[in-house]
């Protein structure tokens, strides 16, 4: 052993020092003051080093040196990172080589060094031969890089969002539970039902409940809206998460009348409580109630989405509304399945309990069912289909790329038969030649894979930036080792499969035969047939992708032309939330009058009003109702339900909605005046078909519960409530003073750019009350755009894929036809010499090329129709087998194919017969 001082004699002191240093650098990072912290090594390079460097202190020391040098080069972070990446690459190559050398030395066999030597030779030969044909090399690398890059990027999305396990202990045992009403609609869980489940169920190690609960945080410089969640005390135990500071919730925190306590996220602790350990025990004023901070959650902890504050149930547990069994107040249950039990077993047990509850409390519980789902799948429900469609599409793209590369390699293999035959004749063994071809194709795919990783990184950044708001687990999306593995596996598959064709051909030819015949340049008929077959496949695949893109484009076009029922331009919206005792009904009404008087006086403002739920954004209050003069159905689940929407006077005018009959609300419709409503056309048609609804009355709630009958005074045109693609629900507008809610959206109609008025409107609110947080400020155009972000993303990605596919297919087609022309130069020359007209030659070549395209198109159309049901769920206003789209796509593809064939065909007509014949 050479080298003094290994790990053993530096044990304790080194460890202590290392720990201290780690602590120092952590503090340094927290303070954000240390300059050398700016440059972080590229993740890919770090990953590479972790695998390539020797284990233990040797590798650690090299990594440390690199880090130090990287940070010393902090003048240009980008340059420093690129330096780091280059060094990482050089280290990996050198150490890999070193290891291989050591291994062959220790193997002490004769074959290995020879083998290595010959691979090395093959590699150098391959590099030289690629360098000699730069166009071929560039086309092949671009094709591979695009195919591998796009598929790696989409795979990273799919992996991060759908496949990678949630960051909780044993996440597969986490089960989400909700209730389902007799119509089959998802409902939240009634609190008393949850308590009964928890008392009786055996299938779970524990069952928790929780709901989102945004809070208004006051008592600081300015009131703020914070994302919160109320949960039962065992919630974090079930997730398997412990606070990094302070304590977890305990059973006592859930008891009625317990002191209100909160756990805060690490980010919130650093931001709002200055990361101070003394924050434990401090008070937070949330919705005008003081909560004691008892703990801080670990860094990076995230449940479904970022949440600042979790509070225990204590302050809410005694709420009489919560204890009402018929009230499904937004709670969802989360259980940890007992080890060894299936989700089906748990579902059977909960269903049995739910049935018992139905018999026990028929009024509220009959016909209600439970629904169990793994938390992991629940979280990604909204994006699963889009991602899978994109994943399928990218698979097609990768196939196209592979087919294209195969075509190129076969063409090259055919052209090189002469060279290979010469080598065979000179004594090159078949195995040797085949292995050289394999090395060549593997090298190409490795290089393509490397460039592809770059393409993937860029594409992934774009995709993440483009992803619809609220896409779950986006933070988990990164170019990770498994995606890289995928890329290289794809590349290697391309290399080996398509390296195999020429290799097989080469090893199948007899040397002499080709040395003699090879000069005449004939690729075998077999390889030509193979190429034509591959070309047909490529066109078919491209057509499927084009059809998908075409359908998505039609979908987005349809969506953007949907009649929303209101004017979305020049409309500023923002949310406010009145929380706490001081906001009595009367105070809220008065406050709004005052605010809107001020806002309307602002220059550039045409009108302003407030509403509970913005159109498109979804209804916040759905309720059953009873219509006067209509029979009440026997079964409760058949009662009609409507989106109840309190609005202030001037709302309809501000939104630019159309009055169909009757009148709109005025300031005269106050808290004390007679109860009135305005309904939408949908409700008028449904409840009073053929009758005049004006003057009729309706009542919100169950038939037997006492409530106020309200008179219909107006009918307005339908507006889209739950997104552009959803049907308009029945809707009941109520004057705000007659049903004042605590959450509201302001809508401000402007004559100028609506976004420019945001500060002025917010100021008008804060002049009156500095503790009222204003949040979610968006223009209505933005709301509309966000509502179709999913479709837009799908359209964009599919379009890029389709364009790449079309380009690859046309380049491929061009290549095959051009190659055919080159091979037939002699024949064409003879034809022209014998008097064939040039346009006949043109027709001949174009016809042969187009026949491949037509056949491919036909297969592609059949494929697209077969696959159409996969995309159906993403479409709107167009069927998956829309003939217009298919015709348009076919026309486009054939046009491009025609151009791709025409160019080489035109070149064929320029063949000079004397030249062609002399060349023989």
């Amino acid at each position, binding site marked *: 052993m*050479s*080298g*003094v*001082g*290994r*790990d053993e004699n*530096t044990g304790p*002191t*080194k460890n202590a*020092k*290392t*720990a*201290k*240093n*780690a602590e*120092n*650098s952590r503090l*340094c990072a927290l303070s954000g003051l*240390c300059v*050398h912290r700016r440059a972080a090594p590229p993740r890919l390079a770090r990953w590479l080093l972790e695998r390539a460097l020797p284990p233990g*202190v*040797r590798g*650690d*020391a*090299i*990594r*440390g*040196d*690199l*880090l*130090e*040098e990287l*940070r010393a080069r902090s003048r240009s972070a980008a340059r420093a990172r690129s330096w780091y990446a*280059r*060094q990482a*690459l*050089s*280290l*990996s*190559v*050198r*150490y890999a080589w*070193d290891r291989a050398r050591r291994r062959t030395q220790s193997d002490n066999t004769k074959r290995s060094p020879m083998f290595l030597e010959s691979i090395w030779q093959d590699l150098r030969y391959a590099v030289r031969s690629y360098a000699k044909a730069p166009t071929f090399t560039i086309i092949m690398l671009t094709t591979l890089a695009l195919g591998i890059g796009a598929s790696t990027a989409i795979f990273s999305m799919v992996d991060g969002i759908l496949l990678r396990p949630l960051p909780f202990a044993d996440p597969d045992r986490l089960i989400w539970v909700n209730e389902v009403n007799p119509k089959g609609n998802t409902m939240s869980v009634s609190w008393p039902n949850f308590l009964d489940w928890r008392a009786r169920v055996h299938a779970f190690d524990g069952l928790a409940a929780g709901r989102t609960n945004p809070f208004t945080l006051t008592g600081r410089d300015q009131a703020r809206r914070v994302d919160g969640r109320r949960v039962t005390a065992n919630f974090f135990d079930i997730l398997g998460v412990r606070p990094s500071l302070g304590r977890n919730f305990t059973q006592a925190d859930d008891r009625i009348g317990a002191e209100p306590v909160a756990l805060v996220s690490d980010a919130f602790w650093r931001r709002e409580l200055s990361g101070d350990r003394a924050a434990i025990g401090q008070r937070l004023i949330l919705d005008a109630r003081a909560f004691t901070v008892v703990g801080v959650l670990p860094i990076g902890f995230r449940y479904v989405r970022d949440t600042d504050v979790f509070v225990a149930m204590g302050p809410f547990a005694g709420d009489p509304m919560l204890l009402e069994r018929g009230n499904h107040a937004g709670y969802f249950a989360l259980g940890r399945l007992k080890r060894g039990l299936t989700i089906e077993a748990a579902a059977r047990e909960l269903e049995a309990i739910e049935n018992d509850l139905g018999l026990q409390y028929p009024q509220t519980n009959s016909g209600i069912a439970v629904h169990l789902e793994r938390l992991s799948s629940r979280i990604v429900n909204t994006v699963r289909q889009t991602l899978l469609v994109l994943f399928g599409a990218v698979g097609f793209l990768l196939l196209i790329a592979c087919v294209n590369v195969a075509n190129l390699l076969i063409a090259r293999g055919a052209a090189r038969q002469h060279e290979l035959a010469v080598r065979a004749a000179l004594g090159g063994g078949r195995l040797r030649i085949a292995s050289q071809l394999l090395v060549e194709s593997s090298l190409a795919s490795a290089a393509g894979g490397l460039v592809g990783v770059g393409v993937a990184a860029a594409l992934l950044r774009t995709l993440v930036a483009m992803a619809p708001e609220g896409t779950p687990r986006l933070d988990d999306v990164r170019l990770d080792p498994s995606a890289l593995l995928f890329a290289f596996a794809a590349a290697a598959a391309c290399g080996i499969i398509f390296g195999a064709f020429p290799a097989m051909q080469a090893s199948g030819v007899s040397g002499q035969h080709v040395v003699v015949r090879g000069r005449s340049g004939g690729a075998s008929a077999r390889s030509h047939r193979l190429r034509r077959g591959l070309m047909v496949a490529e066109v078919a695949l491209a057509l499927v992708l084009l059809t998908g893109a075409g359908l998505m484009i039609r979908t987005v076009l349809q969506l953007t032309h949907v009649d929303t029922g209101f004017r979305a331009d020049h409309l500023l919206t923002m949310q406010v939330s009145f929380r706490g005792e001081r906001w009595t009904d009367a105070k809220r009404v008065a406050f709004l009058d005052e605010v809107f008087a001020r806002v309307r006086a602002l220059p550039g403002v045409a009108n302003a009003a407030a509403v509970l739920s913005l159109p498109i954004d979804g209804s916040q209050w759905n309720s059953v109702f009873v219509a006067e003069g209509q029979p009440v159905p026997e079964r409760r689940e058949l009662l009609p339900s409507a989106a109840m929407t309190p609005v202030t006077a001037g709302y309809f005018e501000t939104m630019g909605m159309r009055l169909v009959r009757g009148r709109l609300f005025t300031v005269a419709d106050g808290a004390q005046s007679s109860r009135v409503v305005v309904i939408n056309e949908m409700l008028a048609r449904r409840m009073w078909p053929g009758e005049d609804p004006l003057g009729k009355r309706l009542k919100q709630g169950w038939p037997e519960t006492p409530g106020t009958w309200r008179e219909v005074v107006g009918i307005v045109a339908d507006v889209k409530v739950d997104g552009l693609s959803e049907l308009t629900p029945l809707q009941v507008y109520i004057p705000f003073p007659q049903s004042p809610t605590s959450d509201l959206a302001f809508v401000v109609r402007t004559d100028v750019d609506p976004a420019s008025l945001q500060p002025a409107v917010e100021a008008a609110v804060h002049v009156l009350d500095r503790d009222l947080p204003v949040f979610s400020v968006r223009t209505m155009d933005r709301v509309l755009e966000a509502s179709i972000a999913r479709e837009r993303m799908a359209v964009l990605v599919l379009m890029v894929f389709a364009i790449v596919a079309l380009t690859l297919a046309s380049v491929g087609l061009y290549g095959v036809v051009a190659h055919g022309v080159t091979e037939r130069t002699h024949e064409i020359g003879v034809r022209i010499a014998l008097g064939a007209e040039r346009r006949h030659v043109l027709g001949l070549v174009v016809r042969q090329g187009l026949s491949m395209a037509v056949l491919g198109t036909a297969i592609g159309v059949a494929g697209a129709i077969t696959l159409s049901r996969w995309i159906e769920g993403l479409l709107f206003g167009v069927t998956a087998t829309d003939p217009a789209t298919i015709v348009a796509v076919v026309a486009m593809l054939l046009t491009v194919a025609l151009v791709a064939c025409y160019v080489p065909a035109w070149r064929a007509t320029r063949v000079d017969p004397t030249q062609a014949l002399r060349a023989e």
Partner: protein
Amino acid sequence: MPPAYLGEFEQLLLLAVLRVGSDAFAPDVARELEARAGRSVSRGHLYTSLDRLEDKGLLRWKVAAGTAVRDGLPRRAYTVTPAGVAALRASRDVLQRMWHGLDGLLKEPSR
């Protein structure tokens, strides 16, 4: 045992370690090489060469504690072993013998 044979780069490396002084760190060695010999060396080449010299018994190293700027990762401090010094000396002697008598032929051309 005769002194080990040294390649040109190995000579430069050992000399650079000696110049940096006792307990040389690899980045300092690289800087010294670049400053004095004008050789910019990739880290892959640097570390595998250092390892090779260690295998030949011409270099040794001990672990030194890391600092914050390197996230607490340890350092290796290199020293040239007596065998390394002997190898350098032998190389120099060979070169000097080869140079001997050629000064007239190889002197800088006058402008």
